């Protein structure tokens, strides 16, 4: 019938036949697209593909003729082109992923954790790009260096503005460059495009934060979906069995380590399952744990106080003038923070030996403590910074008073109080400058990140490379085996490195509003880090002895990232909302609050009704009910998800009982069948004539893909009338044949 259709003229086809044909073609197309997901051998897939292609091409031609079908043909062609484009784009994307080969190389040697670099780099590149865009606009539209006071180095500093020491500190020319907030002009519209500079600055700042939130939460949601939800914990042994081997391992050394760790984990799990909850000396353990936590708290408090003390001292130095102090005193704050970040985790490691936890739990505690350490340090730093901001603002007030005096002195008393004077041209470098607290904040963050980077690189070089060199070469003339005992090669600490990356990102988020080029600088730093780490990992490190993860899912690090994102944007938002901007620097200079720029834009650029709508929408009377609604929605979703989980568990239990019942019924039926067959073959059907029904059933069973053990085809020995319950193991029937019986029963 199909051949006839192909030969007839398409106009002769009835609409129903056409519809059916179209359906069949669509079905074939769906088959083609799902072929790659079918577990068939390639030969079979190829044959099916070619057959389906032939069919589709033959009948698509038929469907494509006639005036109303032109659209269909066009649609089909576009779809083909789109699929080809998608495939080429996938190829292009994989070719573009940076460091793909390097990462594969590393992944074969170490466990595959480096995926985390991807979301981080994506997260960084995007803000970097956005801010570059901002800068590009500025560079193209804005007025160049030297044309305005905020863009020029003051006369007093000009002498040493190019000194390396000053530039390294981000003073001098660096301070008055695009790097920092203070450079940007507050003029509302720039250039022939009427580019709204302050508005764009504000929106880009807010936008990057919002985008970061979105990316992190979306990644978390995706990871949570992959988890499958529901009963995560009930398959511990099975997962250890089926998923613990990492197929990317290509190195025999890593493979041996992996074997050892799998064995240990099996033995531990079995032991844990067996031994009683009761632990001897539980009081001692509890006491030791409390002691350890107390020590850790002391450490944290101590480091917080140290940072605060050092920041106050640096303020004192700044007042006295930086030139009179040594390099250490000038960079004290950053060095102290970096050193604390390096040594405290080691201290925590030592303290945790007291606690005697399972390694995974110990790792979680360790990560939590390092987290608290970094957070504490960062917040102490910020509080100290707030003090400095207040100092600068006081200075500003004083300066504003002095400005009027200075201006008057310019005119040298030649004018009366009320007359307007011809403008006197003063070189921008000579105008007294207000202390720009925003630039100061930006500078502090940039300095912090630079010193953090330096510390990381130096630790890497000394801690890993130098150590490896010493161990390798001193081993020949040392009394004990340096490679096996202390100090041996350093292990590649995955979780520590990931944590470092996360904190780095947090600092970027904090400082990005005040130092717009910070994300771009960070991208550069990450590139260099990547190459350095790759080299170090391949040449100086050994894989970790015990390979395990800090948590069951990747969401642990993502959750940390989210918390850091929240905590680091908090200070920036606080400063935007409460502290008035400086009067002479930055895109918001002269306003009473930074977000006034939004108000201004609404008033001047949008029609009047828009402003009214906006003011109604931001009325607390509207916002509060909306927030209440959101809270209720969250509560509702939470309770439905709980009830789904409950329903899931119930269904599972039901499934078990039902399968058991079915099992019993099937064994009974099969037993009856076999006994019937036995009597049937003996009495009714001689071997040469057509096989009776019982034999047919057996033949149908034989059609299954799996072998049936020979004992299944012969009737079983008579067993008593009572059939035993669920069959232990697989005695005379393999499971597939039990499942097949219901199908053949339907004949």
């Amino acid at each position: 019938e199909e051949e006839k259709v192909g030969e007839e003229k398409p106009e002769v086809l009835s609409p129903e036949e056409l519809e059916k044909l179209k359906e069949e073609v669509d079905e074939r197309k769906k088959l083609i697209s799902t072929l790659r997901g079918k577990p068939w051998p390639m030969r079979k897939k190829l044959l099916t593909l070619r057959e389906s292609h032939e069919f589709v091409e033959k009948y698509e031609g038929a469907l494509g003729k006639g005036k109303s079908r032109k659209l269909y043909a066009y649609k089909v062609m576009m779809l083909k082109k789109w699929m080809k484009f998608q495939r080429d784009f996938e190829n292009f994307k994989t070719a573009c992923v940076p460091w793909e080969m390097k990462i594969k190389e590393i992944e074969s040697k170490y466990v595959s954790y480096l995926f985390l670099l991807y979301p981080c780099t994506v997260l960084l590149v995007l803000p970097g790009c956005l801010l570059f865009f901002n800068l590009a606009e500025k560079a193209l539209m804005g007025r160049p260096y030297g044309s305005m006071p905020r863009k020029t180095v003051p006369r007093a500093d000009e002498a040493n503005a190019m000194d390396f020491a000053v530039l390294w500190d981000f003073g001098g020319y660096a301070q008055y460059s695009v790097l920092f907030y203070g450079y940007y002009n507050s003029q509302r519209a720039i250039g022939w495009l009427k580019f709204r500079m302050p508005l764009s600055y504000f929106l880009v700042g807010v936008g990057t934060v919002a985008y970061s939130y979105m990316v992190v939460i979306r990644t978390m949601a995706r990871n949570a979906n992959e988890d499958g939800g529901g009963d995560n914990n009930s398959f511990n042994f099975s997962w250890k069995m089926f998923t613990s081997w990492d197929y990317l391992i290509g190195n025999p050394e890593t493979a041996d380590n992996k074997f050892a760790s799998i064995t240990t984990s099996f033995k531990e799990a079995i032991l844990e399952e067996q031994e009683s909850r009761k632990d001897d000396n539980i009081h001692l353990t509890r006491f030791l744990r409390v002691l350890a936590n107390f020590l850790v708290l002391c450490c944290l408090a101590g480091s917080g106080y140290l940072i605060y003390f050092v920041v106050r001292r640096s303020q004192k130095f700044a007042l006295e003038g930086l030139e009179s102090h040594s390099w250490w005193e000038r960079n004290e704050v950053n060095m102290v923070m970096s050193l604390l970040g390096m040594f405290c985790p080691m201290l925590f490691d030592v303290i945790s030996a007291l606690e005697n936890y399972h390694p995974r739990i110990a790792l979680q505690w360790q990560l939590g403590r390092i987290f608290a350490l970094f957070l504490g340090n960062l917040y102490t730093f910020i509080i100290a910074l707030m003090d400095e901001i207040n100092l600068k603002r006081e200075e500003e007030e004083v300066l504003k008073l002095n400005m009027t005096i200075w201006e008057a002195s310019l005119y040298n008393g030649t004018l009366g109080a009320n007359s307007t004077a011809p403008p006197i041209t003063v070189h921008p470098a000579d105008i007294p400058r207000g202390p720009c607290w925003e630039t100061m904040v930006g500078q502090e963050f940039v300095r912090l990140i630079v010193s953090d980077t330096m510390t990381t690189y130096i630790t890497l070089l000394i801690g890993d490379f130098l150590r490896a060199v010493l161990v390798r070469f001193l081993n020949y003339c040392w009394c004990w085996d340096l490679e096996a005992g202390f100090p041996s090669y350093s292990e590649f600490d995955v979780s520590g490195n990931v944590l470092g990356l996360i904190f780095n990102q947090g600092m970027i988020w904090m400082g990005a509003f005040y130092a717009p080029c910070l994300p771009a600088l960070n991208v550069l730093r990450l590139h260099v880090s990547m190459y350095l780490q790759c080299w170090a990992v391949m040449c100086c490190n050994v894989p970790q002895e015990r390979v395990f993860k800090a948590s069951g899912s990747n969401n642990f690090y993502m959750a940390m990232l989210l918390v850091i994102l929240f905590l680091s944007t908090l200070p920036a938002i606080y400063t935007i909302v409460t502290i008035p901007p400086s009067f002479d620097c930055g895109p918001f200079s002269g306003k009473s609050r930074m977000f006034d720029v939004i108000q201004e834009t609404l008033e001047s650029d949008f029609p009047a009704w828009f402003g009214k709508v906006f003011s109604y929408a931001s009325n607390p009377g509207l916002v509060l009910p909306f927030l209440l609604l959101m809270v209720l929605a969250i509560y509702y979703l939470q309770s439905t998800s709980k009830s789904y989980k409950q329903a899931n568990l119930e269904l599972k239990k039901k499934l078990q009982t039902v399968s058991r019942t079915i099992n019993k019924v099937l064994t009974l039926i099969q037993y009856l069948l076999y006994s019937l067959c036995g009597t049937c073959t003996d009495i009714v059907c001689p071997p040469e004539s057509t096989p009776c029904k019982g034999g047919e059933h057996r033949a149908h069973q034989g059609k299954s893909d799996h072998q049936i053990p020979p004992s299944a085809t012969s009737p079983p020995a008579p067993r008593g009338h009572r059939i035993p319950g669920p069959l232990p193991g697989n005695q005379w029937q393999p499971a597939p044949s039990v499942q097949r019986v219901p199908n053949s029963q339907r004949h």
Partner: protein
Amino acid sequence: MGTTASQLRKDLLSEYQELTFLTKQEIILAHKRFSELLSKEDRNIPTPRVPMEKVLSLPELKSNPFRKRICHVFSTSDMKDGSLTFEDFLDLLSAFSDSATLEIKSHYAFRIFDFDDDGTLDGGDLEKLVNCLTGETDDTRLTTEEMRQLISNILEESDIDKDGTVNLSEFQHVISRSPDFVSSFKIVL
């Protein structure tokens, strides 16, 4: 129909792209690596087969405890000797690739773990599986008591219908809940 010694035909390449989860570059790389494994005489026959020993010499498979099972599962040889044609090799890489779906991976994982090829994972299969995972040396093996305990724990967790074996759907149910499976069940050339 088969592949020539040095080049992969364009139409075949696009068909392979449609039928596997591999990208064009990956297929070309696979072809190159496969040709390196062929001996000189084999290069000129239309559908050459690489014997299992040669396949096992690939660095990606050398340290894998399941390498022999992998070859057996993907081999379409009538003699069941684990030898692979290029198309079998592509099937292998596709199932182990990054973009393969969970269904395909779990299907093949099940077949790999099914040492006696009877369609279910019974006690014997699980025991062989554990022995593979703990390394082949005697001092890393589990004792009989530990093995028995382990297998009974696993069956308790995964065997939903309590027939003493883990069938494909039970296996897929367990695997789909695992966060590690997709990322660890990967082989990349």
